Structures are given as structure tokens and as C-alpha cells.
């Protein structure tokens, strides 16, 4: 294992200390229990948004804390869900009296821990709504699995719900928006290489030099199938095809096209994927009205990418364009 770390057991703690040192103007970091919170929290009268999940997906979620997006994020150990005490303390720290939305990726651990946390927070008199994202079309048969995983749509939902909360919308509406974004979005990912967790020091699965893994999640788990390596055009066709077959996308629709790197794939390759995706969508009469290209929801040092498409409308476009000011996503009106 070759990594820029000091101690495998101190990775999450030291990374949090680095974030706190880098963004003292925006963020506060609590260590016991661990969470990242807006420096100016709580915002009185505003619905607060909390997310969280295992570490190793940076910049998600801590990098999305700030005005216009998340109020707090709870990082677990690498690829391990955070615990209910973290989520409870984060929820208490951001509650401004208008309630708290938990955005939870559909992974068994995340769902169970957030459920326990919501029970505890409600017991302390805080109104909590939870929305579980499950946009990964690689998981086909949800009756016989833990259900579709929450992946790329989570990033988009955090931005869009953050904007709606900043507009002063009530909890029920922000939660409904989150469900709508999840329903209108689909994702699929692939890997060129596995990733290595600092704890194990070993690759999460094996791939030959001429192989790729299709339908991966974001925790280094193997995907649905292993295939011979193919050019970017064919890979993009494979991912986009599965998404378009599954999702609510039709000729004449407008979408947000999100090409995401898994951590070790350079931007130059992501733009090639974006070029192919843009071409495929145009050929189907689908207009790319907004886009996002870069490393936003990663799996440590995995090479590969994921594609997310979100069907847009006027409201979602306006919320996407609203100002956001976080370490990883930042623009003004």
C-alpha cells in the first residue's frame, strides 16, 4: 500500500483536522463525536440539512457543508457508516427551529444508523424528516437485494435541497423536493481499478490489466460484472444506455448531466466521457441544460467514473443556479 498518510488508524481524524485548518471561515469541526458543521450554524428559522456516510468519498459530504448546501455532515470511518450519536449531535447543532432533513444514501448501515439517530432526535423534540436516495441502476433486482444504492444523485439532491432551504421553504416541502430529485435521477458507475482502504492495505477486488468492472458502487465492492476494457465511447454508451433505459428520460427533455470521477481518474479522461455523453444525449433529443464534471463522490483511489442524469424543470434549474458557497462547490448568482 502506497498512500500519503501517517497512520492508517488516524486517517479520518487527521483529514478532518486538515479540513478545519483549511476552511476556518466556513466550517467548524467537532471530533467527539465527529461532524462538520457550518461555522454560522444554527440558522434560525431555516430548515437544516444533514447528511453523512463513510469517509473515503471526499469531497462528499464534508466538502458540501456551507451556505446553499449542507448545514452539517457526519463522517464515519473509511467506508463505514457514521454512528447515531454523531448524527444526533450534528442535528442538534444545526436545528434552527424549522426542523432537520436527513439525506441518507441507501446503504444498509447508513439507513439503520440514521433511523436510530432520527428516533433519538425526535425524542429530544427536534422535527426530523429523512429521505433515502437510491439512484444506482446497476442494482437491477431490488426485491432480492438491499435495494438500489444511493450514489451521484445524492450530491445533486444536497445542492438542490440546500437552495430550497435557503429560500425559506418548510421541511415537508424540502423533503418532498428531495424525493422528487431522487425519483428523477439515475446513475451508474464503472471502475478501471479497485481501491485500497487504509485499514486493509489491500485492493478491494482484482481486475486484470485488460479488464474493467461495470456497475460498481462507491465502497470498493465489486460490481455486477467484469468485462474486457473498452474505449471511452463504448463505456459511456454502456452506462448512459442503462440509465436512459431505466429513467424517466424522453425526447425533448432537459437534463443535468453529471460525470463524476471515482478518485484516481484525471479530469482529461472525465471530459472525454462528457464529450461522449453529450453526443449520446443530443442524438436522443435530450438537451443538456446543466452539467457537472469532476471528482465529487469518490471511492478513495479507485480509477473510473460514474454518470448521473437528472431530469430538469424550471424549478430545479433555478435551484441549481442559486448561489452555493462550500469548499467543494461554489458559485454566485
Amino acid at each position, binding site marked *: 500500500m502506497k498512500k500519503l498518510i501517517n497512520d492508517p488508524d488516524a486517517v479520518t481524524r487527521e483529514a478532518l483536522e486538515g479540513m478545519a485548518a483549511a476552511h476556518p471561515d466556513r466550517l467548524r469541526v467537532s471530533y467527539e*463525536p465527529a461532524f462538520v458543521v457550518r461555522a454560522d450554524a444554527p440558522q434560525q428559522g431555516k430548515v437544516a440539512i444533514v447528511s453523512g456516510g463513510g469517509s473515503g468519498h471526499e469531497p462528499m459530504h464534508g466538502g458540501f457543508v456551507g451556505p446553499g448546501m449542507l448545514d452539517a455532515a457526519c463522517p464515519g470511518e473509511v467506508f463505514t457508516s457514521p454512528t447515531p450519536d454523531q448524527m444526533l449531535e450534528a442535528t442538534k447543532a444545526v436545528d434552527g427551529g424549522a426542523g432537520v432533513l436527513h439525506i441518507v444514501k441507501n*446503504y444498509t448501515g447508513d439507513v439503520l444508523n440514521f433511523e*436510530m439517530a432520527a428516533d433519538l432526535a425526535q425524542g429530544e423534540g427536534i422535527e426530523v424528516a429523512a429521505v433515502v436516495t437510491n439512484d444506482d441502476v446497476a*442494482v437491477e433486482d431490488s426485491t432480492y437485494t*438491499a435495494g438500489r444504492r444511493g450514489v451521484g444523485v445524492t450530491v445533486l439532491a444536497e445542492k438542490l435541497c440546500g437552495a430550497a432551504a435557503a429560500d425559506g421553504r418548510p421541511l415537508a416541502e424540502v423533503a418532498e423536493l428531495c424525493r422528487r430529485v431522487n425519483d428523477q435521477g439515475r446513475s451508474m458507475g464503472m471502475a478501471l481499478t479497485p481501491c485500497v482502504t487504509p485499514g*486493509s492495505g*489491500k485492493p478491494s477486488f482484482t481486475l486484470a490489466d485488460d479488464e474493467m468492472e461495470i456497475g460498481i458502487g462507491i465502497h470498493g*465492492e465489486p460490481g*455486477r460484472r467484469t468485462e474486457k476494457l473498452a474505449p471511452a465511447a463504448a463505456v459511456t454508451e454502456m452506462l448512459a444506455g442503462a440509465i436512459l433505459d431505466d429513467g424517466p428520460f424522453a425526447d425533448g427533455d432537459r437534463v443535468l448531466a453529471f460525470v463524476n470521477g471515482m478518485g484516481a481518474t484525471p479530469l482529461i479522461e472525465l471530459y472525454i466521457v462528457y464529450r461522449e455523453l453529450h453526443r449520446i444525449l443530443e442524438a436522443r433529443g435530450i438537451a443538456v441544460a446543466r452539467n457537472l464534471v469532476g471528482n465529487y463522490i469518490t471511492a478513495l483511489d479507485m480509477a473510473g467514473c460514474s454518470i448521473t442524469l437528472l431530469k430538469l424543470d424550471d424549478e430545479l434549474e433555478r435551484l441549481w443556479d442559486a448561489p452555493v458557497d462550500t469548499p467543494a462547490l461554489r458559485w454566485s448568482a
Partner: protein
Amino acid sequence: MSGVGAEWIRKLAAEVAEQRSALVELDTAIGDGDHGTNLDRGMRKAVQQLDGMSDSDLGAQFKTVGMALVSSVGGAAGPLYGTLFLELGKAAAGHEELDAAGWADALEAGVRGVQARGKAEPGDKTMLDALAPAAEALRAAAEAGDSPADALRSAADAADEGMRATIPLQARKGRASYLGERSVGHQDPGATSSHLLLRTLADTVAAV
């Protein structure tokens, strides 16, 4: 710390520490490879908190273990094993030791809690595949009049069998379910740690 509960937890923590890499290896095959590391971290915290306790009431001890696991393990195992111990604690409250029927009541309560939290059924290739047959065997042994040590040994044997029976199963819950048919042929790491839990309990009670 003292009493059979604390002895068990200490033995279980030592066993989890020893099997840490084996559990990681099982989890790497069909999950994300963190089960041994996470459980080891949680059990160390549980022992640390029990060390600071003078109460030998099983209910108090198991509740402390449950809260330690909930707040330190993470993943699915944290809330599931946390719930198991919290339910054991409720069932055993007011007792410093249990007879065979008492252990059967406690384990049944724990299994119900795990099932309610995780929404898995036996056969889904989860920890329940070791826990559920163990609870059944324990109840049958208690009704047959076995001693606590003998009844818990039957439970551990049933857990062992249940754990091995997960090998040919296709996972329907948890992260292994994403693999579909590729999860077949691997022993479930959660069922494996659940077997450790029951085996160390049987060993502890037998040694009293």
C-alpha cells in the same frame, strides 16, 4: 467488572481481536472488508466501559455493551449488534445470572430486535442465519431441562451449523446482496461473528 456477563464480553472481545483479519477477509470477499476492524474497535470500547463499572447486573452490563457498540462500530453491524445487546439487557435486567430458560428468553428478545431493525429473514445470508437457529436450539434445550452450559453449547453448535449453511446462499440483504449470484460460495461475515458471540457465551458459562 465482574460476573458472567463481563467475563463473556471480555472473552468475546479477545476472540474478535484474534479473528479480526479472518473477518476482514470474509467481508472483503462479499462486502467492503471492514467487519473485523469495526467489531474489534467496538468490542474494545465495550470492555473499556465495562471496566469502569461495578454493577454486576446483567441488564446494566449488556446495556453498556449495546450503547458502546451503537456509538463506535458504525456500518450495519453497529446498530444490529447494538440492538441485540440492548434487548439482551432489557430481558436480563435484575439478574446476575440466568438459567437456561432465562438465556432463551434473552436471546429470543435479541433476535427479534435484530430482525426488526435489519428487516432480514433467515436465509438472506446475514447474522440472523446463525442467531435464529441458535435461539431455537437454546429454547428446545431449556425445555428439555438441560443445564445453562449444555443449552448454550447446543445454541453455539446450531449457530456454527447456521454459519456454515450461509456458504451456498445468495445474499438478499446488506452490501453482499449487490453481488447477486457472486455472493454464493462465501461464508457470511455477520453470521461468522454471531457464531463467535454464541461460542464465547457457551465457553464462559461452561467455565463458571
